[in-house]
């Protein structure tokens, strides 16, 4: 099948469109889904193509509309529900945790909740403390949920199609800074199996474990490190739950060094879970203390100067590797110059969203 270069947002759009074409039971709703902006372009034209019974906007009622999705899924549909920020979805935790995650189990496997919930995480444009959280650690702690965090455009498509095809509730997290990143994306009904990490780069010295936008930083760091003679396995988790422990721990066992990267606060992070599991299960293989990077344990400020240095970057990754290997590796070369904007993924990125 051919692959063209399209954006992550377009890849998501293509996944939904493909799913809706393949299966009449797929419906798609959420605030702004049929509006002129179409959730960062990911839902544009879908209502025109599939009709207002299958693609629609919703009242600002996150909790009930999650329950509606669960009920519809139980009754035979395959809803794809979208929220423009994970922060809004805090209102829906009861339906997510007490309903979606538990129904199949409670009712001894006789029912299924084929539901995909798309949530946007990450920075945007000065979004501040309640528009840029990243709650994968919460979701991954709850048995019964699958949690997906694609980094590459191709995976965004393949994992979303696999999520919609999956008969279980899937939380699908899209980083706002990835929507405009382009990459080669296969055409057609392309699916990437849930629960499998990808090794994006192979190396011998350090295992960098990334997810979502942090995989981009890992790749940048690995590229730099290669130039200094340090080679890295870059493991892109892709699915956070169930997590592909074979791949992660296999890589750690090989390199003996782990640095896990997270888009969220460091304490209680998924990166911490990876460090814990590696420490317990790869004890013999580890050559130095396993490490992680994430956000400082503070709400995310909105202001320009306050976010400088708040988010870990490739530069911080290299600094950590320097500590782990006990040698200088030129991390400073990756520092964002003081005269460049650190608060956008590129100069093309404009407000107000």
């Amino acid at each position: 099948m051919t692959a063209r270069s399209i954006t992550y947002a377009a890849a998501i759009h293509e996944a939904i469109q493909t799913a809706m074409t393949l299966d009449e039971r797929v419906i798609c709703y959420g605030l702004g889904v049929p509006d002129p902006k179409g959730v960062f372009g990911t839902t544009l034209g879908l209502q025109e193509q599939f009709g207002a019974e299958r693609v629609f906007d919703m009242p600002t009622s996150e909790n009930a509309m999650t329950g509606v999705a669960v009920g519809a899924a139980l009754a035979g549909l395959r809803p794809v529900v979208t929220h423009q920020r994970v922060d809004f979805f805090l209102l829906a935790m009861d339906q997510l945790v007490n309903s979606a995650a538990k129904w199949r189990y409670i009712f001894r496997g006789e029912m299924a909740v084929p539901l995909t919930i798309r949530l946007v995480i990450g920075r945007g444009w000065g979004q501040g403390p309640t528009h840029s959280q990243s709650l994968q650690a919460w979701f991954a702690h709850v048995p019964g949920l699958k949690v997906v965090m694609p980094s590459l455009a191709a995976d965004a498509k393949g994992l979303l199609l696999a999520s919609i095809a999956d008969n279980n509730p899937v939380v699908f997290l899209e980083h706002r800074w990835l929507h405009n990143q382009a990459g080669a994306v296969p055409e057609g009904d392309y699916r990437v199996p849930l629960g499998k990490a990808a090794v994006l780069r192979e190396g011998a010295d350090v295992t960098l474990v990334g997810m979502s936008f942090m995989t981009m930083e890992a790749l940048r760091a690995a590229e730099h490190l290669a130039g200094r003679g340090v080679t890295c396995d870059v493991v892109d988790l892709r699915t956070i739950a169930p997590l592909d422990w074979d791949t992660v721990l296999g890589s750690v066992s090989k390199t003996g060094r782990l640095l896990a990267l997270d888009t969220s606060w460091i304490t209680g992070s998924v990166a911490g879970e990876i460090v814990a599991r590696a420490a317990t299960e790869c004890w013999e293989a580890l050559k130095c203390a396993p490490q992680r990077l994430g956000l400082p344990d503070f709400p995310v400020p909105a202001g320009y100067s306050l976010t400088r240095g708040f988010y870990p970057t490739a530069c911080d990754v290299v600094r950590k590797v320097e500590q782990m290997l006990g040698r200088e590796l030129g991390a400073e070369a990756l520092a964002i110059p003081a005269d460049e904007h650190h608060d956008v993924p590129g100069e093309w990125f404009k407000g107000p969203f």
Partner: protein
Amino acid sequence: MTSDVAPQTAIDLLRRMERIRLLEEAIAERYPEEKMRCPTHLSTGQETVPSAIGVALRRDDQVFSTHRSHAHYVGKGGDLGALVAELYGKAGGCCGGRGGSMHLSDRSVGFVASTAIVANSIPLAVGAALANRLLGNGRVGCALFGDAAVEEGVFSESVNFAALRALPVLFVCENNQYSVFTHLRDRQPAGRRIHEMVAAMGVRTVVGDGNDALAVLAAVEDAAAHARNRKGPVFLEFATYRWREHCGPFYDNDLGYRTAGEFEAWRARDPVARLEGELVSRGDLDAAGLRSLQESVRAEVAAAFDVAEASPFPPAADAYRELFVAQDGMPSQGSHTE
């Protein structure tokens, strides 16, 4: 209106009510044996609404329920043995022992399930109605809940969405005035009429006497027809009363949160006795017929306990199964993976 009901229908209604009454009383009696090791919310005194739902709705209409689920399950026609076995935590329980009293399910009769968080299952019924409309299966979704559930924001949200899209769903409120020990006056403003509040949200509403089984039946039939005919959701509120304690097998009027007088006044209006009397006076049943109906129900209840006692406990390893469905559920079209 009352006299419109055909004798078999009226007897069906009574039989469901007797089942609820006798089953709940049997649970109350046997609970202190400590074999039912889970909370139990009994519906003694509240037999009417669940039974009318069971008679008025089609077998495949989908009912969603709450913590006070036994009656709803039995009213819709759920299997008694599977219910009692569930309370016992047995393998033959309707959830294989995983759910306990607050999580019941018998999909063969359209009792989709009950859940234990107040108001939590209301949007699920709306979601089922959304699916029904899209799938064109003619089914009606139905959420049963108490007077406290309307205080949860998710209730208003659910009603709003159902009204917006004119979905085939019934919202059925059994208003027994109490949430655990707390009277409505401590939870909702003075003068509040729940059904008026809901009417102002934009749905058709019905209010009725929850002790008048035949009237409740007529109201539910009417509402179901309305919803099924694509005319939108209906909210029904029925005044009723829970005789026993909120959770557990005993009477608790001694605690003082409600008066003996109030309790006695409601008990005097016993809905089961009333319907028995009505059917006898209508001539649908004579005294012997009534006795034999009661006897057969009593036998059903006893048999349900036998089933539960005889059923084995599920092995502990059963706790670690069926978290996820293994198979995908979407057709593929030349689908290819990386």
